[in-house]
Each structure stands twice: as C-alpha cells, then as structure tokens.
C-alpha cells in the first residue's frame, strides 16, 4: 500500500496507466453470495434475533400476570432480575446457581458416559459382522424414540419399590427396594442413565460416519509397522475421528444442557433440587409462576453459560477450513 492507494493503483500511477473501473460482472459476482444469504438471514432475524432481542428486553421488565395483558408496557426494572439471581445474597441466587450446577453436571456426566459407549459401538459395527445392517438399525432405536416416551419408560423403571431398577438391584443384592431414584441425590443418576440410553446413538452415528472415511491402507501400513489393534486405535483411528468426535461431543453437551422434556416428564414441575436443571427452572418461573421477566433473565444467563461450548463448537466446526 502507498498512502490510501492499493498496490495496483500505485503501480499504474508509476507507469502512467489509467486504472480501469471494476467491471460490472465482477461486482455482481461479489454481490451474489450475499444475495443468496438474504432469505436465510431474514429467516434467522425473524426466528432467532428478534425473539432474542425481545427476551433480553423482557428480562429487564417486570412482566408477570399483572402486565401480561399489556406486555409491551410492562414496567422496566433494569437489572433487578439479574441481581436477584446472581448477587451473592440475592433471593434467587441459590436457586439459579443450583440449576446451573445441575445442568452442567447432567450434561457433562451424560457426555462423558456416552462417548465410550458410542465409539465402542461404532468400532464394533464398522467391521464385518453378520446381520450388521439390522443391528445398526436396532442401535438407533433409543435415539428415535420420542423423548417423552423415553422419559415415561424410565420413570416406570425407577419407580420406588415397584420399578424394574429396584427389583433387579434387590435380586442381585446390589441395592434395596427403596433406593428412591426419583427423589433425593439419586435423581441425578436416574436422569443421567435415562439420557445416556437415549443419546449414545448420536455419538455412535457420528463416530461411525468418521470411521468409514478412514482408508484401509492406513491400517495395513500400521500392521506392517507392527502395530496391534490397540496401537492402531490410538495412533490411527482416534486422531482421524477426533475432529468429528469433538464436534459430536460439543453438540451433545449443548443438547443435554438444554434438555427440557426428559426432566420435565420424569420429575414434573416440582423436581428434586438435584435435577432442577436450568430449562426446567426457567419454565417454572416463566410459565407456572408467571414471572416472565425472571424467566427471561435466566434464559440470558443460560445463553451466556452455553456460549463457552458454543465457541468451542464454532472452532471445531472450522476444522478442515483452509483459510
């Protein structure tokens, strides 16, 4: 660059040539990608950005049962809801922080559990196996069962005394018939187990897709170099599926964090504190107690919390970009 001029302009000036105006065709070509984005961007604006702006606005108002009939004129309360929920001695700090903790624990534990199961299943069904197509389809069953059905099934499994879980544990002398899965500390484990059962096929699918892209030659080469199956897994398989697996785990964590249906159906709207996850807390505050301002503020907090894995996700999504 010389001053404000581009290198081309500078060179042209030196040699005394007139710089040609950009050609019309080139400008149109530059505009084309933006033009193609307009419909999706407009849709995103209407479906995501405007509601998000409204949520942010509502979080600053005292929108409740008294003002819902004229919600555009709900009183402005500033950051009161955030202070109530986040200040060290705020009246709702305990509830909000407990929910953030419950959501993080639930999502991280579930993701940690489904990773080895999903990868293991993918490795198993990637190789030659009789009835592989059928088994692969069966593997997907938990994933395609509607979440509320899954929740009802697991609620029945964990029913105190009469549930299958207690029956089996008692028969194997591993626990009592009164383990209380749906209340108290075990509620978190009940939720994690139910979600692991439903969610592991997601990791399995992603890992399987990644495994199928690995050329056999690499394994042949590893074998010639003397690598066994374990060594080949750590040195060939895992590095090559890692980008896809990383993406799967981030997406999975976000999905679990935002899971509302499973805890809602399993525990109802007065859940044990161990499973009073953030989406459930937001729902109760917004739609059961009509405190929409507080519910919106909690949603904004949830958004901020989820930005961390979202950033990781965006970085992971760029894997393979050449820019």
């Amino acid at each position, binding site marked *: 660059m010389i001053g404000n001029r581009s290198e081309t302009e500078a060179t042209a000036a030196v040699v005394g040539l007139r710089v040609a105006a950009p050609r019309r065709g080139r400008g149109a070509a530059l505009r084309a990608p933006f033009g193609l984005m307009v419909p999706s961007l407009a849709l995103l604006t209407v479906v995501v950005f*405007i509601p998000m702006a409204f949520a942010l606005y509502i979080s600053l108002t005292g929108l409740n049962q*008294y003002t819902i*009939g004229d*919600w555009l004129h709900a009183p402005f309360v500033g950051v009161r809801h955030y202070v109530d929920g986040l200040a060290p001695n705020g009246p709702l700090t305990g509830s909000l922080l407990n929910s953030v903790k419950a959501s993080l624990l639930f999502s991280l534990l579930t993701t940690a559990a489904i990773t080895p199961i999903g990868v293991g299943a993918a490795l198993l069904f990637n190789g030659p196996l009789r009835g592989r197509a059928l088994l692969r389809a069966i593997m997907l069953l938990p994933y395609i069962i509607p979440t509320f059905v899954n929740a009802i099934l697991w609620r029945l499994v964990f029913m*105190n005394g009469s549930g299958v879980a207690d029956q089996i544990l008692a028969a194997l002398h591993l626990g009592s018939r009164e383990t209380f899965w749906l209340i*108290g500390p075990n509620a978190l484990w009940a939720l994690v187990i139910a979600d692991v059962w439903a969610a592991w096929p997601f990791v399995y699918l992603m890992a399987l897709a990644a495994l199928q892209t690995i050329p056999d030659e690499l394994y042949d080469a590893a074998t010639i170099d003397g690598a066994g199956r374990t060594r080949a897994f750590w040195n060939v398989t895992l590095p090559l599926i890692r980008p896809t697996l990383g993406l799967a785990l981030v997406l999975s964590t976000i999905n679990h964090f935002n899971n509302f249906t499973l805890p809602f159906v399993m525990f109802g709207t007065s859940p044990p504190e161990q499973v009073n996850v953030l989406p459930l807390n937001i729902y*109760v505050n917004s739609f059961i107690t009509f405190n929409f301002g507080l519910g919106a503020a909690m949603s904004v907090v949830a958004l901020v919390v989820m930005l961390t894995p979202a950033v990781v996700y965006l970085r992971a999504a760029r894997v393979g970009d050449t820019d």
Partner: protein
Amino acid sequence: MSNDGLTRRSFLKVAGAGAATVAFPTVLLSCGQSTTTPPSTSGKPKPGSISMFISKDTAHPQEQAQLLDMIKQKFESQFHGSTFTYDTYASADEELTKLETAAAARQGPDIFEFGSTLVPTAYATNAFEVITNDLWDRVGGKKIFFAPQLTMSGPSPDKLIAIPETANPFAFLYNKKLFQDAGISRTPTTWNEFIETAKALTNPAAGQWGVAMAPADGFDPWHKIWLFGIQKGVDLMDKTGKKGLLDSEGVVTACAFWLDWMAKFKIASRQNATFKGADETKAFATGKIGMSVMTGPGGIVSFDKSPVAGQYAYTTGPTVPYGMSSMPSAGKPAQGFVSGQYLTIFKYSKNKDLAMELIKIIVTPEIQYQFFNLRKQQPVVLETFNKYAELKQTPWDAFYQAELKAYPTPFFGSWGQLEVVLGQAINKMAAQVGVSGSYNMDDLRTALKQANQQLQASINS
C-alpha cells in the same frame, strides 16, 4: 476506498432492517389490536360460535363428552344458527399456558373454565369480564349459588369474574373395615386423636398404614399446610398479599407436623415420599390404608371397583390442632378450602352475550344434576340440592357438610407462586425423609426461608 459492491457490513444493516421491518408490525399487529365490549344486559344475542376451554375429566372422559353433548344440544336448539365447540386441557401446565397465550395475544376461547386457585391469577391478567349485578341476574342472580363458592369468584363483590360451575369439596376418607378390625368406633376430631388412631391402624409388617400422603404432588403440600395453618390461625401470606410468611414459626410447625407422619409417628410409609395425588388414591384403594385427609370425591368411581369397595366412608375431619385440646381463638374449623371449577368470559370475546346464555344453561338445576349424575361432581346451584335428594345422601352428605366449612384461600395473583415454592420446599424435605427416614429441622427452616425469598422476589418483581 470507494466500492460500488455491497460490503458485508452494509449488507447486514440492510438485511437486518428489512427483516425487522417485516417482523415487528407482524408481531405487534397480532397483539393489542382487539377491543372489548361488555355483554349486553338484555335482548336476544345474535347467532354466533361459542368456544369453551375446559379441564379434561380423565376419570370420566365418556361421561364428560356425554354431558357436553347435552349442553350443546340444549344451546344450539335454543339459539338457532349458533354453534358450541370446546377444547380440553389435561394438566395445570396446559391450563396456564393457554391463559398466558390468550392474555398476551388477546385472542382465545370465549369461555375459560378455571380451577378456584387459578381464578386470582386470571383476575390479575385483567383479561376476563367483570360480572356485574345485571349480568349475574341473567343467569339467575348470585343467590342461586352455594354461597361459599362465590368467595373465590373475585377479590370483592363488585369485582367478580368467575361464575361457579361445580364444587370440589374436601372430606375425610377412612376405611371402615380397618377401623372395625382395630376396635375403633369413631373417627378422630382432633389431630392428637388422629395420630393415635393412625398408630393403632398401622402394621408395617402387613403393609398396612394409618394414613397415606402425597408430598411429591404439585398441590397436596400446600393443601395440607394451608389446612393445618388455618385451623391454628396461621397465614401463609400476610393480609395485604405483599409479604410471604412461609418462614414463620407457625408454617414451620405445620410442615413439620405433616412430615412427621412419615418421620416421627411412622403412620405413613416412607414410600409415600414419592407419592403424587393419584398414588395416594391408588394406595387407599388397596384397602391397606386407614385414612386419607382432605380428599375430594374424585376417587369414588375407582374405589367402588377396588378391594376397598363397600368398606370406605367420608366424614368431616379433625379440626383441633396437634398438641392442643381445643381450637385456638384465631383458628378456623376448616375442612378444606373453597374449591371447584369456575366459568369466566374472555374480555376479548366477540360473543359475550352468547357466552352468558351458554353459562345460563350450564347453571340450570337439570344440567347441574348431570354433573353429579355423570361425572360425580358436586353442583353449586342450591335448587339442585332441593330437587335431587341423592345429593344429600351418603357419601355426598359428608361433602355437603364439608363444603359448609370450606374457607377461601387469599385472593392474590401471586398465590400460584406460593403453591410452587412451598411445594418445592416440602418435596425436598420429603425426599430427605424418604431416603434417610428422618429430616433435619434446620434444613426445613432453610428450605422454607428460601421458598419465602423466592416468593417475595416474585411478589416484588
């Protein structure tokens, strides 16, 4: 640098502004455009379509459809050219969501049916028509109704929004056979007697318990704590509705008394810690539960088809607080709170006159009787009790008596929040009892203090 191509920034500006221009009017137009006109006080209404949003009677779905069909036929034959449709909700969550959506969008059914404790919330939304004296006269006047029911129709006599439809009185349910087997000749009248009776009925080895309870239910905790409180003169909120009293010593004691049924007195199974209302009914139907406190008539149909058929009865329950020999001066001999279903007219309805006519049909003694006959619900129109003697016969006589001793819950818009936070505190403590067999009193105080803080934050917002 000049560039006649579209930059990324200018593109975002244009696209964002364009989308907002399209979206905002759409959003705003959908809200706040409705106007309201009160129903007229005389004259025959023009033909139209009436829609009603009502709770689903899961115990009697076919009978409910039959009753609604009866109402439809009456209405459509009386108002030629008009139609009646209805939609049902199966849960309180659905009921709330519909109320919120309708109030915010100012669009919804012409008539909403609400449970009594949701009427204050509905009133707070200002989305329902105030029933003036002229309008009451159109359905026969306030005098035709069972007076206690009107106490939950609005905050004051000039601000009533809800017309009573049916009552859901609470009575004391007991197993006559278990009482007989244990040599007990009468039901308890004080809570001290109740504990002693329950102990005599309890035999854990045989799976038999003095009482069943449902602390994991969304509603049962506040029902019971409210009952123990009001009998002692203890309020859950102050008279202004601006201050929660959930952490008061009176409420702590009331909660402790209920939890002690499992923890200290051992008259209820620890299994009850996970019970919701339906589980309590199911447990009583096995014939191994001696008593059930503050119970509605909803279980009659299932009891009559269960091992407890012919062995159960309803009566009035204890009123003298635990540890006392007589009612304290501030206490009230409550059997339950004023409960039932109410009909409200949506303020933004375009068929308010027709809606009033439909309600008039619903509160005729003939239709009121069908609520009882088909759905086992107690009518609220006095004439129905005079016309149909069976309404005062066993077991309904107990409900009639109980209804006379029903007291209204405070008419505050934030009552719904109180129900939730108190329920959560009790759920938490019941879980502690379920898992360990006992609870820590300090934990109970902390849970109630947190609940009160949440309630207060909600009231202040």
